[in-house]
């Protein structure tokens, strides 16, 4: 048993010990994307926001869309991991680390979009020095700081035993692993302390994650702009965030399953469970979208209706209907039955949802600004290569950070898999017996 276990654990350590040609190709490709983004930002920095498609009245375009989208994707990790951990879902074990890393990487990228969006980034410090808490933008800064701190802590704590394994088994980066392992030897006391700390963080992280995306929605809903001033924007954004987050997690899992040969750990059953979760979220997303638009339509306020029709049959119709197709129709068709070709179907649905959720953010941000309530001239937003470059660069940066992480730390938690093998079957059996009424007969 021990030999089998070690052989399989080697699969998890292999990406850290050896570097294949694929890694360098991936880094080269991502570097090109990042270079494109860097050049785009350099041009924007020197010539100002005039080089982008952001003009009056549309002052928020791709950057704010990306901000909301990336912060939404960040919900994949810590929130999903915490819910699965607290509900003692045993199938979570190979998934949680991947999910938590997404959060920590993507939240930096998301917050960075605001810096990119600033016409005068040199005035950034003024927000910190002279900020006013009456502004929802500052609520955002505070809640994202809390989520980032919580997510980093929540990622690091369950990594400590794995870092100790790296310290003991690998011949490189001894100092780094020794420092981060905090002298972990796996004593009963250490395990107790760690489990307690992880449990506290798991409980804390859930309300923080929910609050973060609610606060992101407040940036829009606290204004009196048509199509933004909505009471359901908080939960609508949270549902969308979890929806896109799960899709992002699934795509990441499938990529690394293929790249690092993790089929032994990430089995079709994991994708089936996540696919079912995705289907539920697709239905919930549709419900919220329907409720949001029905309320606006029924009220028939002229300014609101202008935007409503701009989305349904006006200049934004391709984006709106593509969003409905990607977020509802395709996932429904793919996820209705997952008995066969599970991984392929879940992958198609997830890719579709990622595109659809980005379009949803775009559809929320841009049309309202194109048709302002105040008597300003209406405007059309057309992004230039600068915004496309920034978007590609941001995606590249996220993927590169993630890839580099996998070269330093195992992407699947080794100790949690071990713990699952050693204790889970007994614990689950005991738990099931405790759920059932009366005495349960022992097997002969």
């Amino acid at each position, binding site marked *: 048993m021990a030999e089998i276990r070690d052989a399989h654990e080697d699969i998890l350590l292999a990406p850290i010990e050896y570097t294949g040609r694929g890694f360098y190709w991936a880094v080269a490709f991502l570097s090109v994307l990042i270079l494109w983004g860097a050049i785009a930002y350099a041009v924007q920095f020197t010539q100002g926001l005039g080089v982008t498609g952001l003009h009056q009245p549309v002052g928020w375009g791709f950057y704010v869309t990306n901000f909301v989208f990336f912060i939404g994707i960040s919900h994949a990790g810590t929130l999903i991991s915490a819910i699965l951990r607290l509900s003692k879902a045993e199938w979570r074990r190979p998934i949680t680390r991947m999910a938590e890393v997404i959060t920590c990487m993507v939240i930096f990228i998301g917050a960075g979009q605001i810096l990119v969006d600033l016409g005068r980034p040199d005035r950034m410090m003024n927000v*910190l*020095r*002279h*900020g*006013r*808490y*009456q502004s929802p933008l*500052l*609520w955002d800064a*505070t809640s994202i*700081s*809390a989520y980032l*701190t*919580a997510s980093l*802590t929540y990622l690091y*704590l369950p990594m*400590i035993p794995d870092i100790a394994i790296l310290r003991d088994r*690998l*011949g*490189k980066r*001894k*100092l780094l692993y*020794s*420092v*981060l392992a*905090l*002298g*972990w*030897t796996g*004593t009963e*006391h*250490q395990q*107790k*302390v*760690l489990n*307690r*700390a992880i449990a*506290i*963080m798991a409980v*804390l992280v859930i309300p*923080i994650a929910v609050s973060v995306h609610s606060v992101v929605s407040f940036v829009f809903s606290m204004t009196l702009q048509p199509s933004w001033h909505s009471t359901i924007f908080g939960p609508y954004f949270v549902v969308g965030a979890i929806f896109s987050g799960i899709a992002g997690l699934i795509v990441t899992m499938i990529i690394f399953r293929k790249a690092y040969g993790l089929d032994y750990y990430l089995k079709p059953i994991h994708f089936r469970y996540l696919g079912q979760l995705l289907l539920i979220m697709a239905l919930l997303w549709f419900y919220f979208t329907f409720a949001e638009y029905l309320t606006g339509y029924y009220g028939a306020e002229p300014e609101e209706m202008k935007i409503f029709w701009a989305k349904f049959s006006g200049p934004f119709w391709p984006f709106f209907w593509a969003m409905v197709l990607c977020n509802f129709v395709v996932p429904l068709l793919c996820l209705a039955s997952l008995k066969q070709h599970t991984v392929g179907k879940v992958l198609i649905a997830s890719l579709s949802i990622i595109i659809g959720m980005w379009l949803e953010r775009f559809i929320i941000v841009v049309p309202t600004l194109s048709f302002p309530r105040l008597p300003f001239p209406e405007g059309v937003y057309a992004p230039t290569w600068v915004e496309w470059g920034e978007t590609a660069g941001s995606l590249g940066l996220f993927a590169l950070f993630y890839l580099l992480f996998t070269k330093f730390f195992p992407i699947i938690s080794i100790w949690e898999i071990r713990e699952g093998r050693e204790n889970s079957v007994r614990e689950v059996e005991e738990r099931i017996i405790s759920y059932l009424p009366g005495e349960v007969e022992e097997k002969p």
Partner: protein
Amino acid sequence: MEYQAPVSDRLIRRLQWIWLGGAFLLVGGIIAWIVHLIVASWRLDDVIQASVGISIVAIPIFLVFMGVIFYVFWGVALHGRKRED
């Protein structure tokens, strides 16, 4: 496996303290920033209720983070090793 010289325990312990200090600096820095915003709104006679209301929620959360980080450091790195000895 390539040979690596053994790492000094004292160096590791020092770096661990620096790591803890860095974590405290990050969390403490955010708390200090929130307090700064309250002071600024007080000085400018701005709507202080908003700053105080948000900080009543935010500051304890950050303090709990600090507590958890220190608890793990104390329980795993300091106390955990002592028990093992």
